[in-house]
């Protein structure tokens, strides 16, 4: 390995990324990202998870184009409860003559909506609470952590249930209910990261330069928490999807005729004996997406923090 910093021989892109003497911050950042990607892509299951999620996003974007039929209007007269493989209905139809495949494809939008909104609401709240709590210390820390622990000790599904019961069914209320019960773990993670970073020299340096606590927390402390947070959010996604589906199953999520996957299972429940596909197909969709997030989250965790994978 050459010790000199003068590179007269042109390097391949890979060498440039992996060089241990980066010439610029950009090179260092890209190099780190490249190595993380290497570790990640070595894990086949994680890549599979990533593909599933990308597929979900693509389907949600192009649902209108991909779906052969309307997800809400069905052929009540001629196409009720057709089995999978019927002419024009790949996965069969439900009791209102609606194509199940089209409903699933459009339902992916609802799933994605839930995930994105819950993440956007819960993660920043948790990050802020945790970072402020960890950096401020003292009684601010004690109070904020007490509140966090109180929320952590609550049963998520049951509280979301009660919340939606009070606010009325609907997908916005379901999202809000889930987000409110999801932020505590992020606060804990952010606080743990903040505590380990707080006493480091570069924070002291920034403070000496006159930065206000706001600026320090915002620009220096919070970015350090981001990678652990991303891993945790991804891993939580599966649980959030399942909770949302559970709420939908109980009739508390998106209201008919919206093709929410959990609600589809509930409406198909009556026909489970003879027309099993109405309730089964949405469950498979939920399983696949949930699996995808779990695999992706596991892979991200192993790639971003090699200590955890234990090799």
């Amino acid at each position: 390995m050459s010790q000199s910093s003068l590179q007269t021989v042109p390097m391949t892109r890979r060498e440039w990324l992996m060089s241990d003497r980066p010439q610029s911050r950009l090179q260092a950042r890209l190099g780190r990202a490249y190595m993380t990607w290497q570790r990640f892509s070595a894990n086949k299951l994680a890549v599979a998870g990533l593909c599933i999620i990308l597929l979900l996003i693509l389907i949600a974007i192009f649902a209108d184009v991909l779906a052969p039929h309307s997800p809400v209007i069905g052929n009540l007269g001629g196409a009720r409860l057709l089995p999978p493989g019927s002419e024009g209905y790949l996965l069969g139809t439900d009791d209102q003559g609606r194509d199940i495949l089209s409903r699933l494809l459009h339902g992916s939008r609802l799933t994605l909506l839930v995930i994105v909104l819950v993440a956007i609401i819960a993660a920043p709240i948790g990050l802020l609470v945790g970072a402020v709590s960890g950096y401020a210390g003292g009684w601010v820390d004690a109070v904020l952590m007490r509140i966090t622990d109180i929320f952590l000790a609550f049963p998520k599904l049951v509280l979301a249930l009660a919340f939606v019961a009070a606010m009325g069914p609907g997908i916005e209320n379901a999202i809000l209910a889930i987000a409110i019960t999801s932020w505590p773990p992020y606060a804990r993670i952010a606080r743990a990261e903040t505590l380990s970073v707080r006493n480091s020299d570069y924070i002291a340096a920034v403070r000496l330069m006159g930065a206000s606590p706001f600026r320090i927390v915002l620009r220096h402390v919070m970015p350090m928490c981001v990678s652990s947070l991303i891993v945790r959010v991804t891993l939580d996604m599966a649980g959030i999807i399942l909770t949302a589906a559970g709420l939908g199953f109980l009739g508390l999520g998106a209201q008919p005729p919206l093709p929410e996957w959990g609600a589809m299972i509930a409406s198909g429940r009556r026909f489970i004996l003879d027309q099993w596909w109405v309730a089964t197909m949405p469950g498979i969709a939920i399983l696949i997406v949930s699996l995808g997030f779990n695999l992706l989250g596991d892979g991200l965790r192993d790639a971003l923090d090699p200590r955890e994978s234990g090799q």
Partner: protein
Amino acid sequence: MTIPETTQLAGRKRARANGWAKSVLRFLVIIVTTYLGLLAVTFFIGRVIPIDPVLAVLGDRAPAHVVERTRELMGFNKPLYVQFYLYVRDALTGNFGTSVLTTNPVMADIRRVFPATLELATFGTIIGSLIGVPLGVLAAVKRGSIADQIVRVVGLVGYSVPIFWLALLSLLLFYAKLRWVAFPGRIDIVYEYSFTPVTGLYLLDSFWQGQWDVFRDVFRHIILPASLLGYFSLAYISRMTRSFMLNELGQEYIVAARAKGLSETRIIWGHALRNAAVPLVTVIALSYAGLLEGSVLTETVFAWPGLGLYITNSLQNADMNAVLGGTIVIGSVFIAINILSDLLYRTLDPRTRAR
């Protein structure tokens, strides 16, 4: 012991007594604040969120004078903090109001249905631990092998699958097609009159009373939902067991144990698992709490007359008192289990005991 060692020991004893008092105080603060927090949240949900909380409780078809009287009785005309104080006082005495649906006090309803959920969650956790722990140990010991992969896949599916959907499918298979199990409910109508439950835990009661045909019937009813919850539980438990075991097996004392010439079996079960047991017990306790929650959806599918079904039924009927009462009960048990598992951890780990 040398003289400095004896004074050290006396000082440590004194510090231990002080520390003990402090931790008891801290423990009480935690319980009180958490429980108050739960009540605050349910109060918020029940009184603050609905536009007219009285209507939420009574339904919108109640006559006007009843609404006014209830408004007086429930103290809605008083300031918020007084309302909260009354609310807390009521909750602590177990007064959750009256159910609109059954016209019974909510607490009486809950007392009737809770044992069913308890029995299900307990059975499920037993299945989950008895299978999950050995699977996790196997996966850790044979790391990277086929057995490890299988255990991990089984676990992965377990926490990716919607439990109510799996419940439906399992009913389809094991009840509708195979007739191996019984459905719905906990017990056949035939036996409902000849069987008097004592604790509310039917398996235990029928076993205790020696009523074997009742026991068999109850078993056929409970085995499927309990196995489902058990699968859920073992997915989590096996994953955590594997993780803890891998952690322990990498420690120096395992090398020392091998240096002593101990057999692998003894090292795995007597040394590694013994150490992993400490965090594992808390995992099992938390899994139990999780099953209490999971039963909410499972009971709906199996028509299991437990607290979960009670809450969801009340929900469909806009019976806010019942919903909130059930939420508080589950929430309280949840909090209790969380705190207990923390306590268990401290007592089991000899390192924290000394502190």
